[in-house]
């Protein structure tokens, strides 16, 4: 098969199989599980075939998809990608089996579960094999969706849905940051693939730095780095198979994978790489372990250790920025990732299993080891995995931690930066916390089930340990219970829903199964944890079959030819081994001490609710107070925006819009006395306009309006527009009479509610002033140049002058129009050939510029206005006539009565708002009384 289709099929197989399970009838449980297993199995098989045929350095496979948006099906099956792909498919297979045992024969659950889980598998495989940036993004965002579906599994539990949303928002925002970063990188370098980046080495410039920061933000959100880590413990409300798979072994590794994919390009180029990654990584590492120690819920403990381990993995890549003996300072990074999966997945699997049969609360698990026939197996596997967590000697984890310490040591040697003391301390502290967690788990699980304090005092050492543990554990229990009660901490609240129901023996609403399937509650964990010890005790085996093929750190091949050889280094104690010893020793001591045993509430748990509240409360108040639902208020806002816009543009161009033109505009007064009269009339107009807003009575207001209109008429007359004055005066008279007529029919005015007058006045004045200014600017202000020309092609200074010049003399008909609709006109004839006589009198031929503008320059407009007015009048007339004609006698009588009562003649059927004014439902409109007198 063509390699690209081989890989694509491997990617799509799980999702396809998952989707096919939906077609099976719900009762076909075995077929469903079979088909579900087929998905990851097929992926594994195809990946195996691929490696067998093409090896692990096969290069890049390309097929165009949407090259327009740089989206192509370009896959890069190199060692790093293949390693992750095998991890995803392999653990996926085991989790599928585990899910069958976990959910039991719950048909509905499995019906829903496999499609979601397998969709996730596909997206994860896509991420690790994608070479193209956009393809990576596509799968990356899809993991957020499938993660959302799986975290919100308990769909009737509001907490679960809330936590799912929190995870989605955090990782989704990270995904979008990643998108921004990758686009930035792609556009900056012109390369849209990781492999392509080899061809164009990066520079340490601002764009690259920004791209890196954004990409890292995406990776950090996905990989739960401080301070975005809080979504991961929150995501533990998901069923345990999901936690084991997505939130420990695979999805959270996507960020680590991305950083691992990018370090060869960035690490040595950007100085910000080690600073950012080491800083956040180290903080995450210590903080996660510190919180984990103080949790009592098994899943919470493991969630925070996951956070911690993710911090460590990030640090590991951060250290790659330094060099050691001429090579990048990175040792066996894939081994580190593998190691984490090999102990964290079993831990979760067993946490779920134990929660299934007993409880997940540590205080309730005292002596679980001794409880029954299967409990000792579960407890053993859990403790073996926890031994891996503690990086005890003999496990792969020990080796991996040793590698990490070596890296820290080498980087310290290389730079001798004082901050490395902090990093060394942080590494030791993390190791110490992990060991302490193991000790506490062991002492709790192995404690004798019945604890009688008076008897146990003289017993064996193991019981002595149990004693030490007994008190604080009980304390922690009560504390946790209290916590659950009155803070309803989501993490402790959940067990009431699903897993902890196992404590009462119920499981998931189904009886405990017997027979074949229940062994898969612990078997997958046992299988995986076995590799821990194989890796630790017989490293050659792991090296031979896995790491030699998949470990991409070929940079080290010269320096440390094989995985086995590095163990030789361990026999010569150096600082790293001392660090390990210190961590184990301190951890054992801390484990037995009564320190740090109270339930710790991670303050960042409140980060998302806090952010949400900030947005809804703060933002809601800020924006919502504008969104009142009052039409009048909206109108005010629109005008404000209008004025604001003008102020804004004036702010940008003060010279052009304000300062400049008055120097050029001329107020030419033709008669000396004219100005005084004009001033008086203008004063009258203004006075009446202001009075209008003050006067309360309707009739008086109409009269004042009339006074205003008549003053305007006088202004027209004064400035020699008698025709306009005539028009205006007739309209004024008619409207005044009509107004008074109608008012006499209206009911008496209801008392007006208090309105804020001053702001309204301010807005009105501002709008008026702005309009005035702009109109003035555009008519007498200078025009740029050549916008208007007179008939000789000379530019006319402004619009006002254009009208004046063209009102009598006018234009040259032989000219070529400058534009389609008239405007300026240019005579193309040479000046000496112009026939001046013919040119003259082609204007409007009117002396009165206002008249000419109305009936000539914009004559069509006036005609349109008249037409519209006429049509409207005809319409009104028709409606009125119809109304009279079609009215039933009864209606007429009623109307007559209403009229006699002096009420309801003009009735506007806009109802009053009903219900409480709620900022989210406001649809208010001024009531009838207010409409009449605006």
């Amino acid at each position, binding site marked *: 098969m063509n390699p690209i289709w081989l890989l694509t099929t491997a990617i799509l197989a799980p999702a396809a199989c998952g989707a096919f399970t939906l077609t099976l009838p719900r009762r076909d449980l075995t077929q469903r599980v079979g088909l579900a297993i087929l998905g990851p199995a097929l992926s594994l098989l195809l990946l195996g075939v691929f490696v067998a045929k093409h090896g692990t350095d096969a290069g890049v496979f390309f097929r165009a998809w949407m090259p327009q948006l740089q989206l192509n099906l370009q896959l890069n099956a190199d060692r790093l990608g293949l390693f992750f792909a095998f991890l995803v498919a392999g653990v996926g297979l085991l989790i599928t089996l585990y899910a069958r045992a976990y959910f039991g024969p719950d048909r509905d659950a499995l019906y829903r579960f496999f499609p979601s889980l397998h969709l996730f598998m596909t997206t994860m495989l896509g991420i690790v094999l994608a070479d193209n940036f956009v393809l990576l993004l596509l799968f990356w965002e899809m993991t957020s969706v499938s993660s959302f579906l799986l975290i919100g599994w308990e769909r009737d539990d509001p907490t679960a849905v809330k936590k799912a949303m929190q995870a989605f928002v955090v990782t989704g925002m990270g995904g979008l940051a990643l998108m921004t970063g990758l686009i930035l990188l792609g556009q900056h370098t012109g390369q849209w693939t990781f492999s392509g980046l080899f061809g164009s080495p990066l520079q340490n410039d601002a764009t690259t730095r920004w791209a890196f920061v954004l990409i890292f933000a995406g990776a950090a959100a996905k990989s739960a780095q401080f301070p975005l880590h809080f979504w991961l413990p929150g995501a533990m409300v998901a069923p345990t198979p999901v936690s084991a798979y997505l939130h420990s072994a695979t999805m959270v590794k996507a960020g680590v994978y991305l950083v691992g994919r990018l370090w060869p390009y960035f690490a040595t180029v950007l100085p910000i790489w080690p600073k950012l990654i080491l800083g956040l990584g180290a903080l995450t590492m210590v903080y996660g372990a510190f919180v984990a120690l103080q949790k009592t819920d098994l899943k919470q403990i493991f969630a925070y250790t996951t956070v911690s381990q993710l911090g460590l993995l990030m640090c590991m890549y951060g250290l790659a920025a330094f060099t050691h003996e001429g090579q990048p300072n990175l040792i066996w990074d894939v081994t580190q990732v593998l190691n984490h999966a090999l102990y964290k997945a079993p831990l979760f699997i067993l946490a779920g299993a134990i929660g299934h049969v007993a409880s997940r609360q540590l205080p309730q698990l005292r002596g679980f080891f001794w409880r029954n026939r299967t409990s000792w197996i579960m407890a053993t596997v859990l403790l073996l995995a926890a031994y891996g967590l503690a990086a005890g000697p003999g496990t792969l984890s020990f080796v991996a931690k040793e590698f990490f310490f070596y890296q820290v040591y080498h980087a310290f040697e290389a730079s001798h930066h004082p901050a490395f003391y902090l990093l060394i301390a942080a590494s030791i502290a993390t190791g110490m916390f992990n060991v302490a967690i193991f000790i506490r788990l062991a002492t709790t699980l192995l404690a004798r089930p019945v604890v009688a304090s008076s008897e146990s005092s003289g017993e064996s050492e193991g019981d002595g340990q149990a004693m030490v543990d007994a008190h604080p554990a009980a304390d922690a229990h009560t504390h946790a219970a209290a916590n659950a009660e009155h803070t309803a901490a989501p993490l402790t609240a959940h067990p009431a829903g699903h897993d902890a129901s196992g404590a009462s023996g119920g499981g998931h609403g189904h009886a405990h199964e017997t027979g074949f399937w229940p062994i898969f509650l612990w078997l997958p964990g046992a299988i995986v944890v076995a590799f821990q010890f194989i890796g630790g005790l017989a490293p050659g085996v792991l090296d031979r079959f896995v790491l030699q093929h998949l470990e991409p750190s070929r940079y080290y091949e010269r320096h440390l030819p094989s995985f086995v050889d590095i163990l030789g280094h361990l026999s010569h104690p150096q600082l790293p081994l001392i660090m390990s010893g210190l961590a184990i020793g301190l951890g054992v001591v801390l484990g037995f001490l009564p320190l740090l045993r109270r339930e710790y509430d991670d303050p960042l748990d409140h980060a998302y609710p806090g952010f949400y509240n900030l947005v809804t409360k703060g933002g809601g108040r800020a924006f919502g107070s504008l969104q009142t639902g009052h039409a009048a208020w909206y109108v005010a806002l629109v005008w404000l925006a209008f004025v604001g816009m003008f102020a804004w543009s004036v702010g940008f161009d003060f010279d052009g819009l304000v300062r400049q033109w008055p120097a050029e505009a001329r107020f030419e007064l033709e008669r000396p006395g004219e100005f005084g009269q004009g001033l008086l009339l203008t004063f009258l107009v203004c006075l009446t306009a202001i009075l209008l807003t003050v006067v309360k009575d309707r009739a008086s207001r109409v009269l004042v309006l009339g006074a205003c209109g008549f003053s305007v008429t006088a202004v027209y007359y004064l400035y020699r527009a008698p025709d306009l004055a005539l028009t205006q005066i007739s309209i004024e008279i008619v409207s005044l009479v009509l107004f008074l007529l109608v008012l006499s029919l209206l009911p008496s005015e209801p008392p007006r509610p208090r309105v804020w007058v001053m702001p309204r006045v301010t807005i009105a004045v501002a709008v008026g002033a702005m309009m005035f200014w702009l109109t003035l600017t555009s008519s007498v202000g200078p025009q740029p140049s050549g916008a208007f020309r007179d008939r000789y092609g000379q530019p006319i200074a402004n619009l006002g002058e254009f009208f004046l010049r063209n009102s009598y003399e006018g234009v040259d008909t032989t000219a070529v129009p400058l534009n389609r609709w008239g405007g300026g006109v240019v005579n193309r004839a040479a000046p000496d050939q112009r026939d001046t006589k013919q040119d003259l009198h082609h204007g409007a031929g009117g002396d009165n510029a206002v008249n000419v503008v109305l009936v000539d320059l914009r004559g069509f407009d006036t005609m349109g206005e008249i037409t519209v007015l006429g049509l409207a009048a005809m319409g009104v007339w028709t409606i009125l006539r119809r109304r009279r004609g079609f009215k039933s006698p009864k209606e007429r009588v009623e109307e007559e009565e209403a009229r006699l009562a002096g009420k309801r003649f003009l009735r506007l059927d806009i109802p009053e708002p009903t219900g409480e004014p709620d900022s989210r439902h406001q*649809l208010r409109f001024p009531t009838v009384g207010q409409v009449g007198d605006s």
Partner: protein
Amino acid sequence: MTTVTDKIATLWPEIALLTGAGACLMLGLSRSLSWRRAAGPVAALSIVAAVALLFTQGAISESGHARAAGPLLAQLGLVGFARLAILLLGFLLTLVAGQLPSRLDPTADPHSPSTPGAPAPVARSMRGELFAFLLFSLTGAMLCAGADDLVWLFMALELTSLPTYVLVASARDHHEAHEAGVKYFFLGAMAAAVFLYGFTLIYGATGTTDFESIRAYLTHQLRPPHHELPPLLTAGILLAVIGLAFKIAAVPMHFYVADVYQGAAAPVAAFLAFVPKTAGFVALVNLTALAGPVHSRPASLTWTLWTMAALTMTTGNVLGLLQDNVKRVLAYSSIAHSGYMLLGLISPPTATPPLADQPLGNGIGALMFYLLAYGLATLGAFATLACLETRGQEAQTYDDIAGLGRRHPALGAILTVCVLSLIGLPPLVGFLGKLYLFGSAIQHGYLWLVVIAVINSAISAVYYLYIVGACYFAEPNEHLQPAPTALTTRIGAAVAAVGAVALGIAGGRVVDLTHHTTAYPMHAQMPDDRLNAMTQIESIEPPTPPQHLHLSSTQNRRP
């Protein structure tokens, strides 16, 4: 020179729509029910006819241009693409509104208190004339796309909006609808006044209303190095932009949106979310193009759009988060998406080589693509709401649609797909839209704006997921049931959802199309004869001292 007849000859699709609208108007007012019922199919047919005419016309009128070779679609140009998008979405909208008129009771006089709320006899009701308003508005939007003159643009914008005022008020028998109609009308009229005022200032500054002449004027009058626009022109463009913000539902003209969408019938709300928005954006593209190529645009314009984009998306998303009414949520999402689309508006394609060839960098293309993506998804969401009712009322709140996915899986799936596409999740069309849009904005250096948009997208995810959550994660609402006689609505919704998926997986051609139809030459496109005429005029122009060329000089230019 283009004559009026030449111009009209390019308007056959619009003429087809107008004819259809006239027919619908007459059919809708007929006394016979069967005639009235024919109005819907006639409307749909006229849209189909318009599409056909658009294609023939695209083949004929543009074949003579420089872009001779290439597929038929690529010859359409921005105008053609926008018209095509409006027609296709318009067809879907007509489907969605298909049964709307029959749910209204023409005999019930809203002014008579006689039988409030009594079920209307469906057999007697049918307001076919509603389709006429749909078609009128679509015509307006298409004319907007083709506008090459300020007056034309204004008329087209008003033709788009005026029918929608009627639609809002009359397509639903509920007092909310009347109130929404009145609000929409008043604020719309004021916004129209604002942008008309802007237009007049543009005219005042350049002496012409013709886009080509304005551009030519600016090209020839404002030479380097100053590149300064007349301040009056800038002020005019700014006012026009702020007025057009009403059409696209952007801050500071967004106040009406939620109230109006809530009051309007769901199919009408879908119409409002797409058609006026498209008209507004196309007008904005044309107007901002007047200010010249991107590098010489006045800072005030760029900053206005920048601020508007940031405020619009934040306002929309924050307020969207507070709602419990899905229609209001979608209204605020409409605002928020306008904010994203403004990103495209400030990143127009340029002729500089690194940007010229690839779609990522062509913000106008991204804007057009996003409009399509947004239109499909939002249409699907509103159409789903239109398919549902609870206690005889339109389903509106989260509680109303609770358990939709469990009780009506198909409708739930449609709503979910549409909503996820609005979030921008792959492999849906919204993802490509965001990629295209953000990519273009980043290419133009608006990194901070993109970061704001990213944070906003995360906020928006919450309320979109509330919708999904209500569908699947909530206790089902007992009273939720499919609305009667809504077959075409359901078809419309399904087509929209399928479109969102299909375009997301195989939208490469459409991306190409949006890119090629909006690539750089659009802004400099000008028929040669007109350009020559301009040059001749300039050549005989009396020589003027260079300081006359821009306004910053304070010299008095009066003779």
